[in-house]
């Protein structure tokens, strides 16, 4: 019975999707509520999974035909999957509750069925990706996830920008998925004798790959590209800044919060579970992480669209996850258990933290759009007085993502710095990470002040969002604060998750304080610092109260109404000017990729024209088959 609980969300979400086919107005509320309920069940599954592993096995087809590979549908939740299930559940709960009220804004304009049908299926496919235990089924669910999320991105069908973004997203991730398929085929052909079950692979593959190192590198290459596209790793990231702003805000929260973390989950499984640990792989992943970190954040400084800024920052945080993952692999491969464990724990912790604060920030951007109808940072301003709850949660989100103690962002960044700065090989990465953390601070000062504190050009009419929307924001903000002050709870979960793939972190060698996780040395508990900070602020506040009189803002003696608000594109102009080499490199590479895409396009057109002729089509097809057979069968990989 316990194990059947895994099927419950599947059932609820399929019912929700079927209901979503109808056009009635109340369907929106029902679908969102059903999704919320199923998210609750997912959370429960996650909690259960952390305690024990749950497994469900099905024998679907009993034939020994081609479908025999798909025969074994195994759902299994071990600690790592449970961790991701928890994140998925909490985030989709908040997004669904939020969506009950938020999607009403779209009632008149769009066909709601696109949302009500695809949204539950999107959550469903993400859930299935996390719980399935078979590589072939994984690919099927993976592609389905891309499909449904693409429709959600193109939700505003009449906006050409949205449709184009969805198309670009789909094409790029599909291309990436081909690389995953290639890796997968290699694995099941060569190593495991057509068995795609994770446990089987984990038993056989490490030993095999230790011997065949070229296979190892090919697989690493293919997986990095395939999973990297989905995770928006630089240089495969260009779909994300277009796709995430166009989706409705709760869907963006899900896209940025959990969907781009699923490749991370698979990377954990592959690189830590299935592959042997090699330091070069770690360094390569860490380098990708640094590239992602650096370029995306410098671009985030430029943005004037609130959700696009958040999208670039999502890419940046993926870098913050890849960097410690690579560093952790490197440390573990070199035998340094302590720092390797801290680094990997940092990666998982940052995954969870980013899901929370980025989800929160996207929800606040959505609230602002709900009330004012715009995402343009130049136009917005002074919303803190009108939407105090949203402003508060946005402030918590911005502080968390900038890594300010004692919120949760600081803990994961702290662990990243401690682990990377400890060894000269990776200390350069840590240095760049510290710099980009400062740039993140600057970017989110821009985000927060441009929306909430600067005086607007024209008075904006807005009021606080409905309770359902602000409640989900407050819940996420609460998580940010609690996990910052009491990181022991998530750390326990993470150590269990890592333990399930064979990395041991000994929690007793670390001392966990509010906001700080330190190896056990040092003469005083650092909690003194924060206690001091709190107490002294209170003392100063009480001792020096301010009684102020209110006067109009000083305009050097003018009485007219001046436009005193700084437009968003004016922020940090000089900084961007001086660092313009970064942008020229980024733009040059973008142009380079576009050139390649153009050439490939022309090639494809020529090919298509050629294929109209039946004879030439057949002959080309035969040539391709011959090549395939030669490559797969002939060459000894």
């Amino acid at each position, binding site marked *: 019975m316990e194990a059947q609980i895994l099927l419950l969300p599947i059932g609820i979400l399929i019912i929700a999707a079927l209901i979503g086919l109808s056009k009635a107005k109340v369907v929106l509320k029902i679908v969102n509520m059903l999704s919320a309920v199923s998210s609750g069940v997912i959370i429960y599954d996650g909690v259960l999974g952390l305690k024990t592993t749950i497994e469900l096995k099905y024998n679907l087809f009993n034939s020994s035909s081609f479908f025999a590979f798909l025969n074994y549908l195994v759902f299994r939740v071990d600690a790592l999957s449970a961790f991701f299930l928890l994140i998925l559940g909490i985030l989709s709960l908040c997004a669904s509750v939020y969506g009950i009220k938020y999607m009403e804004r779209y009632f008149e304009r769009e066909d709601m069925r696109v949302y009500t049908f695809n949204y539950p299926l999107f959550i469903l496919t993400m859930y299935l990706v996390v719980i399935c235990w078979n590589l072939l089924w994984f690919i099927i669910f993976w592609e389905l996830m891309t499909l449904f999320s693409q429709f959600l991105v193109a939700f505003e069908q009449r906006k050409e920008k949205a449709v184009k973004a969805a198309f670009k997203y789909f094409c790029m991730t599909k291309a990436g998925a081909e690389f995953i398929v290639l890796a997968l085929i290699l694995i099941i052909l060569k190593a495991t004798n057509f068995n795609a079950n994770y446990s089987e692979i984990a038993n056989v593959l490490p030993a095999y790959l230790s011997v065949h190192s070229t296979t190892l590198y090919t697989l690493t290459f293919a997986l990095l590209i395939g999973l990297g596209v989905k995770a928006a790793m630089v240089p495969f990231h260009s779909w994300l800044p277009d796709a995430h702003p166009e989706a409705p805000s709760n869907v963006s929260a899900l896209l940025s919060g959990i969907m781009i973390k699923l490749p991370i989950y698979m990377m954990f499984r592959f690189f830590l579970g299935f592959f042997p640990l090699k330091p070069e792989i770690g360094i390569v992943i860490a380098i990708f992480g640094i590239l992602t970190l650096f370029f995306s954040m410098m671009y985030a400084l430029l943005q004037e669209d609130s959700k696009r800024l958040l999208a670039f920052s999502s890419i940046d945080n993926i870098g913050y996850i890849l960097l410690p993952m690579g560093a952790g692999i490197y440390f573990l491969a070199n035998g340094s258990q302590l720092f390797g464990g801290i680094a990997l724990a940092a990666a998982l912790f940052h995954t969870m933290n980013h899901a929370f604060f980025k989800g929160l920030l996207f929800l606040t951007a959505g609230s602002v759009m709900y009330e004012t109808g715009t995402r343009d940072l130049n136009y917005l301003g002074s919303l803190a007085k009108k939407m105090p709850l949203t402003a508060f949660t946005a402030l918590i989100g911005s502080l968390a993502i900038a890594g300010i103690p004692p919120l949760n962002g600081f803990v994961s960044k702290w662990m990243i710095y401690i682990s990377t700065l400890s060894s000269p090989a990776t200390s350069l990465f840590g240095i760049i990470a510290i710099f980009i953390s400062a740039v993140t601070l600057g970017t989110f000062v821009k985000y927060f002040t441009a929306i909430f504190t600067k005086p607007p050009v024209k008075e904006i009419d807005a009021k606080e969002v409905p309770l359902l929307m602000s409640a989900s924001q407050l819940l996420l903000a609460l998580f940010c604060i609690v996990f910052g002050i009491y990181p022991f709870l998530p750390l326990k979960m993470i150590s269990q998750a890592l333990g399930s793939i064979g990395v041991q972190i000994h929690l007793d060698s670390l001392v966990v304080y509010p906001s700080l996780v330190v190896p056990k040395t040092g003469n005083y508990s650092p909690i003194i610092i924060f206690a001091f900070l709190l107490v002294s602020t209170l003392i100063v506040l009480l001792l020096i109260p301010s009684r102020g009189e209110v006067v109009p803002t000083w*305009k*050097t003696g003018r009485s007219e109404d001046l*436009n005193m608000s700084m437009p968003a594109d004016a922020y940090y102009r000089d900084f961007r000017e001086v660092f313009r080499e970064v942008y020229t490199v980024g733009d040059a590479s973008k142009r380079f990729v576009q050139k390649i895409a153009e050439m490939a396009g022309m090639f494809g057109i020529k090919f298509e024209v050629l294929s109209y002729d039946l004879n030439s089509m057949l002959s080309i097809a035969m040539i391709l088959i011959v090549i395939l057979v030669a490559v797969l069968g002939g060459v000894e990989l």
Partner: protein
Amino acid sequence: MILEILKSNNAKILRHDEKVTVALVPNDKLRTTAELLFKAGCYYATGAGVDERLLGVGFSMYHIFNCEAEGRYIIIKAVASNLKIPSITPIISGANWAEREVMDMLGIFFDEHPEPVRLILPDDWPEGVYPLRKDFRYNERPPRVEFEQKREKKPGVIEVPVGPYHPALHEPEMFELYVKGEEIVGAVYRGFHIHRGMEKLAEGRMTINQIPFLAERICGICGYTHNCAYVQAIEDAAKIEVPERALYIRTILLELERIHSHMLWLGVAFHLLGFESGFMHTWRIRETFMDLAELLTGNRKTYGMNLIGGVRRNIDENKKKGLSEILDKTKKEIREIFDNATQMRELINRMEGIGVLSKKKGREIGVVGPTARGSDIDTDVRRDHPYAAYGDLEFKVPIYKDGDVLSRFLVRYEEVLESIWLIEQALDQLPPGDILNEEYELPEHTICVGATEAPRGEDVHFAIMGEGNKVYRWHPRAPTYNNLPAVPIMLKGEKLADAPIIIASIDPCFSCTDHIVIVDGEKVYRCSLDNYLGGL
């Protein structure tokens, strides 16, 4: 040459001698005359409107041109028919403000003026009340009128108010800068916050010999040149022979004032660039000059030395000796500070290439003084229209070609050294004799012009003698009046951090001036205030 132009346009020559030519031009020939004069190399100095109804003529407008080629001033007079005179602004953009001032103060309307809007009078002054008309008494105070503030905010830029109260400005004036990031994309300026109605006072209740003291108080830094310009105008009208010794004493004091004004400016420039030490040291040296002035005249500023026909106090041998000693010492100190300053790369970086004014634009607007000399315009009243003792002394006029803030800085620095040299020469050549000539007769209704080179540029005083001991009309035109239209052009495209030094680089003396030019976004065009406000 000029005479031919005037004769061919049916002008009636009212006065013609070596310094001033006055001609009455019929209204239909006004524009062509102005155009020909401009092409012949005369640039527009100022314009004054006069209420000559008591003389039976009606309202008239005097346009004053400075003709460097022939070394004299050309004044063309036009009489209003039905309160209308054709405007020469479409041809000569420098006449813009002069005509608007006359529209405000006298109620004459100029046909085809591109922006006939209020310039001097504040927004709450009632319509139809013209202060400079003879039937408006000097101590009359009309009631305040409520005016509407219609103003739309301009999106996409941040409007930074610089003034009226801003630490970068010495006097209240209002600049409003439109800033994107750090770059200024537009500027609006409105002044006349300290208009004190001196012209009316002078006509209304002062005698000819009291006006020098009033003129000295036009400005706190360059008062003595205004004083000199006025007495020169009257001396020119009455053909008074000023004793030579008096002329030399005037020269010494004029150069002393130039030194102290330039030192003040140099200190302020350092302060605006953030170089506090330079500011302190420069002003310490300036103190010496203030002490010198006190030695010579009894006052640190506002010397009160001029009367019509000469000066009031003499320079005796003791003072001469004291003067020479102090000059020697300070020359060395000044050289030291500035050699150090010009070697500081970061100061030079903040002045080089900033706030550029091209020679052509400068000529069109009619900039004067160091602002012009920094943009390769070779003009100096001391050399072109010699007055006081300048005809006998030799000096160099520094010209720099780049037109940026650094050029103006260097021009002023060199002028300080030139001034010290001039004072030394004057002291050497000081002729003996009287210092005041009080035997003169004041003619009535004579038109006269007096011009000096103030520290900021050419200072022109236009006067029409009246009956008895009074003046019928007096119009001082300070140099900053002509330099201000250049500021918005210099500001565009520069960074906000450079705005104070650019505004300061023309050495604005707003007490002397008080006037608006609007630069909108990409184009620089003169537009009417209403259009501008509507389009914002």
